[in-house]
């Protein structure tokens, strides 16, 4: 296997951003759609 330079901290930061980002995005999106429900 070819070895590459890896920073595990960066990997976990990206992982955390993806997790938190998708949690928040889906909640905010739902709220925005619900706000316009009557229309």
């Amino acid at each position, binding site marked *: 296997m*070819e070895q590459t330079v*890896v920073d*595990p901290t960066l*990997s976990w930061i990206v*992982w955390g951003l993806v*997790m938190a980002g*998708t949690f928040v995005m*889906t909640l905010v999106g*739902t709220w925005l759609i*619900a706000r316009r429900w009557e229309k």
Partner: protein
Amino acid sequence: MNGTFMTIPEPSTGMMVGSVIGAACLLLLAVTLGVFAKKRWKSFDEYLVGKRDMGPVVTGLALAGSFISGWAFCGSVAVVYKVGFAGMWFAGIWCLVGIIPAIWLAATKTREFSSKLGATTITETIGRRFESKVLQTVIALSMLFFLFIYSVGQLKAAGTVWYAVTGLPPFWCLLISVVIAWLFLALGGYTGTQWFIAVKGAFLGFVGLMIGIWALVYAGGFGAISKSLMAQNPNYMALINRSLPPTGVTELFSTWVGVLATPVIFFTMAVGFPHNVSRFLGMKKLSKKEFIVLCFTVWLVVGPPLMLDCSSNGLVARLIFGNNLLANKQWGADLAAPMLAWALGGAGLISLYVTGVVGAALGTLSAMVFIMSANVTRDTIKLWRPQTSDRTLISLGYFLIALFLFLPFYWTLENPPALLAVFMGFAAMGLGAIFFFVTVISYYWRGATKLGAMLTVIFGTGATLWGGWAVLARKPALLGMGTMEWILVAGCAVAYFGGSLLSKAPSEELLNKLFPEKKAAAEQYQSSLET
């Protein structure tokens, strides 16, 4: 085997008894729900879609249960175990990016369109949306093809886990499961299936969250996982593992083109999967509060539990077992999820996991088989021979359900696919790309036509077959799986929009019925011009 790490345990009496009890309870529950649901339908239409009165919690749990398949609970952990951190992109970290937009885009529209058109299946809804019997038949055949391929992997997950825990050949476990599935599908129809998938969804959410958090705590946190994997091979902690070939399946883990394709795959497949969107057919008309409850139910079940299971669990399995699971030549990396459950909580937790994965496989398989059967009875026979009696169609449906359950059962035992996640991933890509446009975009775009939809189905089916050869069968692979996803989605978009722009839309009368708000806006605009 490497002695530094745990090895595959021999099945113990506790593991076997616990798993058998768990699976027996699950199957008993399935039959019970089927018996109760039998009282809720009296006609073929009600058998196919219920009374359209399901609430947001049941619908949400059923959607989550339909989405959390054997792949999600078994194959995805295997991918991360095998590839490392880079495997997460394909293994399911984008689950919410797919399933929540599926509600936003398809929930109320599926209910509204199917109800207005008097349709009981997604295929029938699309056929009537475009006023085309031929299109409905072509879609039914295409859906049948893709769902059949996809259904095979469901049983492999259950078989793998059963073997891992009991040490027994999966024949009896799979046979009993498909017989039970036939019973509750035949008895309960749509309502019974919806109820069973909903219960299974709630159970999987609970088990998934427990194992996900437990695994991170057991491993000693992110630092401990990093340390162990860096010692095994630094590539296991790389965001993009460039040591893997840039073509074939591994493109999804080794190049930006592949990694960026993964959220698109999850989005189109969650929104486009017929067995997901079908969960909305029997839903009641939602209020604002009920819409929020629906979204939050799915968010709770699919979000934290599944995203943890699909990402960090594979890494923790590697921390515990190293390469030792790969020593099993028959099941290999697919043992990662059940063995992780065993390492964390012994016989008790692995019994819960087995119950969960048997439920996951059975629930998603049932949802697919029910659609496959209706593809033939409602979407083909009833369409072209409307005088066929309900009784005949229901009896034929019973036979087809048995057939479509038996074929994956046989295929799984005789010729198990090499890597569960990959095999199912390709059928999922085709289904998602085609039906994202043909179903969901057609709910919103008045200008869509049957030619556009037909070209999308033909292109998508052909491109998926060609992709199977170019990416999986040809040695060396001609291109990567991520590139193939971009080709599929872009090609389907060109076929759908291009074909629609070049041909005539359905009748004004139908369009005004389906898009009343656009008609009202046009009238308002016209009147403002006149004044």
